[in-house]
């Protein structure tokens, strides 16, 4: 595997849009070719090399390319967008849309990510060492397909609207999550190891939510069914199972109605 190291040397005046920072775009390119890739600040087009020092070269394919980003990339949007393979390691924080529409490979952010990270994600592994902003693994505006596959793990807390319109994949938040978890979800799994707030599973059609801590207010459309013993992300415990959202439409399988499920740890 070849490694390309990007070290930020100039912060943008506004924010930088750099959807070309992916193993897919870097594969088969020399440092000079990578430095020549376009990035955008407002309506101005510039070169990646204007903002980053580029060292190393891309591998033959995306899968053989690793990108390491050094310095503060918290004003750089779209890192790892649509990546299909390979690795991206961001040593600091990233701005909005990190890993948006990601399809494969591994994206690791040591710091925080801003909103819309993992938007419409389809596959791959996405790890966030700090906190995630709002709309993690959610659908893009107007799309009814949120996160569809892959795994997102947040070591810190997550903002509101995680898994909005989610229909596949897994989101694990080791800290707390803000309001609106899996609103409109039609599948997928969300595990919140800290506390949840209110509006969890609202308008949920299908999917599983696990909450280890408290839930401020349970949605009125969720009905307690029974207690279950489960192992969830390495933790064995007894959970109270709620099904819902009773106000929402639901499909049937083998004559039985399929509901969304909230499991709350005792």
């Amino acid at each position, binding site marked *: 595997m070849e490694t390309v190291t990007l070290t930020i040397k100039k912060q943008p005046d*506004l*924010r930088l849009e750099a959807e070309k920072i992916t193993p897919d775009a870097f594969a088969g390119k020399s440092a000079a070719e990578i430095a020549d890739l376009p990035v955008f600040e407002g*309506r101005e087009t510039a070169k990646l090399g204007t903002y980053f020092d580029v060292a190393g070269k891309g591998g033959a394919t995306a899968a053989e390319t690793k990108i390491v980003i050094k310095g503060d990339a918290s004003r750089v949007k779209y890192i790892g967008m649509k990546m299909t393979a390979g690795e991206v390691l961001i040593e600091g924080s990233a701005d*909005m849309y990190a890993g948006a529409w990601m399809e494969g490979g591994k994206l690791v952010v040591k710091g925080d990510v801003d909103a819309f990270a993992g938007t419409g994600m389809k596959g791959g592994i996405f790890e966030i060492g700090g906190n995630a902003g709002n709309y993690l693994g959610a659908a893009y505006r107007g799309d009814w397909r949120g996160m569809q596959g892959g795994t997102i793990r947040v070591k810190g807390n997550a903002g509101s609207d995680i898994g909005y319109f989610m229909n596949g994949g897994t989101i694990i938040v080791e800290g707390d999550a803000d309001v609106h978890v899996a*609103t409109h979800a039609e599948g997928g799994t969300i595990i919140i190891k800290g506390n949840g707030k209110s509006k969890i599973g609202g308008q949920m059609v299908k999917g599983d939510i696990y909450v280890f801590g408290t839930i401020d207010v349970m949605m009125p*459309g969720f009905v307690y069914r029974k207690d279950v013993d489960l192992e969830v992300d390495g933790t064995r415990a007894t959970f109270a199972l709620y099904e819902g*959202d009773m*106000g*929402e439409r639901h499909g049937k399988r083998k004559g039985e109605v399929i509901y969304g499920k909230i499991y709350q740890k005792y």
Partner: protein
Amino acid sequence: MAKIVTDVVCPFCGTLCDDLEVKVTDDDKQILEVYNACVIGTEKFLHSQAKDRLKVPMKQDEEGNWSEVSINEAVEYTAQMLAKAKKPLMYGWSSTNCEAQSIGGEIAELCGAVVDNTATVCHGTTLIAVQDVGVPSCTLGEVKNRADRIIFWGCNPAHAHPRHMSRYSIFPRGFFTGKGHKARKMIVVDPRTTDTAKMADIHMQLEQGRDYELLSALRVALRGAPLPEKVAGIPRETIIDAAETLKSGRFVVIFFGMGVTQSLSKNHNIDIAIMLTKDLNEHTKAAIMPMRGHYNVTGSGEVLGWQFGYPFSVDLSRGFARYNPGDSSSNDLLRRDEVDAVFVLGSDPGAHFPISSVKKIANLPSVCVDPHYTPTTAVCKLHMPVAFVGVEVGGCTYRMDAVPIHARKVVDAPEGMLTDEEFLKMVLKRIKEIKGVA
């Protein structure tokens, strides 16, 4: 002698009353009296007559001293600012006509700007919800003629849209609603006892920020599924009773305001309210409508919609239209230092944006186009006074139900005063010269 101008449209709120009569002097220069309008509407007309009205553009220097400049200098400053910025924000548009809005869109496209209107701080969430789940709506005429179950959710028309209830929603006798308010049931959902709530048959005084739960509970009740004893502080029986009242109507209309669009849950409150409307359509006929504020904020959404495909927060910086409130919305852009110039027309962010955003505007090159002195004037570098749309110049405007109504000119603007459209056309022409496009 004085004369009466009839069928005047009120350019204040989204009710866009079109039955006003205005008494003006024979020379078309002065408004003497306004009939049929509510107090706010009347004041809008009379305010155009203020003696201390700003008539010449004013520019602020580094030290904050204001001096008069010529119209050409104002055009030049505005054009240079927009042409040079990497990502200018062009905000407002809700208090002007569609003609001016469309020129604004042209400038924005040419300059790679973000165009955003006041929906960004009021009903933008509604527009997001509509894009997510669709919307069964209707016109205010249908409400007047057919609706017998009216909900006001998180809005207070008695104060914000004073003639809404008398013209359309509660009191009028329509074709199929001959008994007027006697045959209508009125439900108000509001944590406060507003003057609107005092008139309601059912007032659900819910806990602040629990609208989403209550809307969900109504959907659950409609499906006959079990409910907890209390939701949002409202007893189960009241919720079931409200659901039954709605089901038993011939035509339900849900009107909603900023009490739900800008409180906790924002767009989700609206998308679940729309889903409730959809559910009600399995039992009777139901529609839902936002109580839009500015008289032509709906028009701005329509114009941006046909120009760029999205109703607000349109980011054109990359040469194609992008739309993602939270990223491309005015306050997020200002908060995150993502824009480097601000152009305001037909609204007052100085009064309505958070102070942190207003401070950002104060530190950027900025232009305010407005007939009035406003709090925005104080933070902008240039203030360009213009004629009052709907008073001194006519034009296309859209009512809250998206019905276009042509506003009328009532009196002449002061001598030499440009309209929004004329000023924007001059700016567009100059930008084309600067950029060397034909």
